[in-house]
C-alpha cells in the first residue's frame, strides 16, 4: 500500500499527455484536434515548466526552400556524427512551417512577414507557452498542474493505459486511465539549475524503462553551457561576442571556434583556473547592444540585477550541465509515429531521443524547437488514432501500476534512504568535466561503480512520509537511472562522435555509425540500432555558400 493507492482524483481520457512544455502542449492540441479527449498532467505549471518557457529564444521558422533549410540541416550534421536523418528533418520542418504560425494567430497577432534572410522568428518562449496554455483550455483539455506523474499503468498484455501521480500542493493522488499515453515530460539535467531545467529529472525515461521501453542516445548527454558563475542563466548564443580572460586579465585565445564557443576548450581552461568574459567583439554600436538586449531579456536579467555591464565589465563564468535537455538522449522512438517499443506509449520533445534530427550533437533552440513542435504533433495525432482504434476495449482493461524503485521498497530494509544524499551522490558523478566531458573507460567504470552503489541503496525503503518526500525519492531514482544509462552507453561507444568524447578513442569510427539502444533497471544492456539512411552528401549550393 502506498500513498498512491489512497482515493483521489480519477479521470478517463482517450489520450494522457505527461509534461508541460512545448512538446506536451502541441501533443495535446494535435490529439484534441483529432477528436480525442485529452488530459495533461505536469509536475509544474503548463506555461512555465521546462527549459523553453524560461528561455527567451524566439526560434526560426523557415519556408520550404532548400537554400534556406539546407544550412540548418547540414550545419550540425557532421558535428552530430551523421546520425541525424534528413527524411526526419524534412518532415519536422514541414510540420513546424505548417503549425508554428498558428501561435501568432491564437495569440491575436498579425502573422509576421519573413525577414530579409527568408526566415521569421517566433515569439519568445514564455509568451509562446502562455498562448499555448490558453489554447489548450479553449479546446477543453483538462490540465492537472503541480501534479507529477509517478508511474505508468499497464494492462494484462503490457500495453500502457495511463498513469498516476500526486498533486504536490494538495497531496491528493490522481489516476488517469487513457487509451494512449504520451511522455513529453522533458529530459534530464540532474538538478544543475541550468536555466529552467530543474523540472527535468529523467522521470519519463524511468517510467518508460519500467514498462519495457528503451532509451537511445544516452551517451550524448554531456551538454554544458556557460553561465555567469553565480547564476543559472545558461544562454550560449551570445558567447560568440565574447573575449575570454584569465584571472590576471590576460586574454585567452581559442575558446571560440568557427564563431561558436567550444565547450571542451572552456572546460579545459576552467580545470586550470577561473575564466572571465566580456562581450566586446562586434558589439560597439549602441543599436547592436539594444538588439541583443531585446532578443534575450533573460541573458541581461542576470547582469542587470547585480549591476554588471556585460559589454564593459568582465564576469567570471562556469559551465552548467544541461544533460539531455540540450544533449540528445531519451526514450527511443521505434516507428514513424513517435511510438516507443511499448504498445500505447508515445514519446515527444526532450523526453524522447532527439537523434533523429540532431544526431549526437545539438545545442540551439532551432533544432530543438523543431523537434518539440514536430514530435509533439506527430505523437498527438498518432496517440489519438491509437485510442480511437481501441474503442470500447479500453474500459475493460485491468490496469496495474508499474512504478517500482523510489516509490516502494524493492528489497526489505529497516533503514529509510533520503533523496538528498542520493542526489548529491549522482551530482558528484555527472557534474565534473573530467568525468562527463572528458571520458575514458576508467572514468566511466569508476562512475558506474559509484552509481551502482546508489542504485542498490535506493532499492530500500524510500522516505515517503509526505507527498513531497515521495516525489523527491522518485526523482532521485530517475536521476540515478539516467546517469547509469548515460555512462553505460558511453562505455559501449568506443569512439568520439557528436558530444560523446572518449580520451581513449579520440577518433570517429566509421563502423560505429549506429544508434545505441540502452535499457534495463538492475541489469543494464545496450545494443546497436542501424541508422536507416545513408550519409547524405552536402549539396552543391551549400558548398558554394561555404566557399563564399
Amino acid at each position, binding site marked *: 500500500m502506498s500513498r498512491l493507492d489512497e482515493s483521489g482524483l480519477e479521470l478517463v481520457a482517450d489520450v494522457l499527455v505527461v509534461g508541460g512544455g512545448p512538446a506536451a502542449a502541441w501533443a495535446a492540441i494535435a490529439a484534441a484536434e483529432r477528436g480525442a479527449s485529452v488530459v495533461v498532467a505536469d509536475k*509544474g505549471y503548463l506555461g512555465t515548466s521546462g527549459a523553453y518557457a*524560461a528561455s527567451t529564444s524566439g526560434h526560426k521558422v523557415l519556408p520550404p526552400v532548400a537554400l534556406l533549410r539546407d544550412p540548418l540541416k547540414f550545419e550540425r550534421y557532421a558535428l552530430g556524427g551523421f546520425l541525424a536523418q534528413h527524411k526526419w528533418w524534412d518532415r519536422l520542418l514541414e510540420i513546424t512551417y505548417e503549425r508554428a504560425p498558428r501561435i501568432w494567430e491564437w495569440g491575436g497577432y498579425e502573422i509576421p512577414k519573413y525577414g530579409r534572410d527568408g526566415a521569421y522568428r517566433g515569439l519568445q518562449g514564455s509568451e509562446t507557452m502562455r498562448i499555448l496554455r490558453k489554447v489548450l483550455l479553449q479546446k477543453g483539455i483538462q490540465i492537472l498542474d503541480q501534479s507529477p506523474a509517478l508511474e505508468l499503468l499497464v494492462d494484462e498484455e503490457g500495453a500502457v493505459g495511463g498513469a498516476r501521480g500526486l498533486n504536490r*500542493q494538495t497531496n491528493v493522488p490522481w489516476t488517469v486511465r487513457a487509451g494512449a499515453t504520451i511522455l513529453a515530460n522533458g529530459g534530464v539535467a540532474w538538478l544543475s539549475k541550468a536555466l529552467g531545467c530543474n523540472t527535468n529529472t529523467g522521470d519519463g525515461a524511468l517510467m518508460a524503462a519500467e514498462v519495457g521501453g528503451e532509451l537511445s542516445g544516452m551517451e550524448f548527454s554531456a551538454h554544458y553551457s556557460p553561465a555567469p558563475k*553565480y*547564476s543559472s542563466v545558461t544562454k550560449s548564443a551570445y558567447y560568440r561576442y565574447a573575449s575570454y580572460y584569465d584571472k590576471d586579465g590576460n586574454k585567452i585565445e581559442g575558446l571560440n571556434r568557427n564563431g561558436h564557443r567550444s565547450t571542451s576548450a572552456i572546460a579545459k581552461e576552467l580545470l586550470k583556473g577561473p575564466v572571465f568574459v566580456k562581450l566586446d567583439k562586434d558589439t560597439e554600436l549602441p543599436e547592436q547592444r539594444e538588439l541583443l538586449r531585446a532578443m534575450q531579456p533573460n541573458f*541581461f*536579467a542576470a547582469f542587470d540585477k547585480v549591476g554588471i555591464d556585460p559589454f564593459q565589465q568582465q564576469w567570471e563564468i562556469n559551465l552548467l550541465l544541461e544533460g539531455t535537455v540540450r544533449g540528445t538522449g531519451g526514450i527511443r522512438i521505434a516507428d514513424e509515429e513517435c511510438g516507443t517499443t511499448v504498445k500505447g506509449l508515445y514519446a515527444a520533445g526532450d523526453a524522447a531521443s532527439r537523434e533523429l534530427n540532431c544526431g549526437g550533437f545539438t545545442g540551439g533552440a532551432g533544432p530543438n524547437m523543431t523537434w518539440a513542435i514536430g514530435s509533439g504533433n506527430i505523437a498527438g495525432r498518432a496517440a489519438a488514432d491509437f485510442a480511437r482504434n481501441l474503442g470500447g476495449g479500453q474500459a475493460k482493461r485491468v490496469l496495474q501500476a508499474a512504478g517500482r524503485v523510489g516509490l516502494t521498497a524493492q528489497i526489505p530494509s529497516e533503514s529509510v534512504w533520503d533523496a538528498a544524499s542520493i542526489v548529491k551522490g549522482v551530482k558528484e558523478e555527472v557534474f565534473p568535466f573530467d568525468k562527463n566531458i572528458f571520458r575514458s573507460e576508467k572514468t566511466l567504470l569508476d562512475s558506474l561503480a559509484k552509481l551502482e552503489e546508489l542504485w542498490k541503496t535506493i532499492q530500500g525503503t524510500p522516505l515517503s512520509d509526505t507527498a513531497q518526500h515521495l516525489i523527491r525519492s522518485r526523482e532521485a531514482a530517475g536521476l540515478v537511472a539516467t546517469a547509469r544509462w548515460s555512462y553505460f552507453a558511453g562505455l559501449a561507444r568506443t569512439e568520439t562522435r557528436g558530444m560523446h568524447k572518449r580520451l581513449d578513442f579520440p577518433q570517429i569510427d566509421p563502423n560505429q555509425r549506429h544508434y545505441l539502444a540502452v535499457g534495463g533497471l538492475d541489469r543494464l544492456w545496450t545494443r546497436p540500432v542501424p541508422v536507416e539512411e545513408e550519409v547524405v552528401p552536402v549539396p552543391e549550393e551549400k558548398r558554394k555558400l561555404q566557399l563564399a
Partner: protein
Amino acid sequence: MIEVLSLSRCIQCDKCVKVCPTNVFDAMPGESPKIARREDCQTCFLCEAYCPADALFVDAHAEARVQWNEEELVAKDLFGAYRKNLGWGKGQSPIDNLKKIHALRELVGSPF
C-alpha cells in the same frame, strides 16, 4: 534565488503559488503566500514575469543568498523590471518588443 516577496505590494492573488515550476511558494489562507522552499528555486525569473503586482524579486545568484530591502529595489527600479523587458508589463504588448527587434535587425543585421 527568490529573495523578496513584498507584503506591501502583494495583492494575495496566489498567482506565484500556481505558476512556480518548482513549487517554491505556499498559499496561506487570508494572507500573502509564503516562500516555503527557497532552496528549490531554480532562478528562472518566471514568478516575477507573472506577478501582476510586481511584488517579487528574484536575485540572479542561483545558490548564494543576497540580502535586499524594498527601498533599494525601488530606487534601482528592479521590481517588475524583467516583466517589463518581456513586454508583459502594464500597458505593454510583447508585439512591440518584436517590432523593435525586427526594426533593429534591419538596421544592424541579424546576429543569427
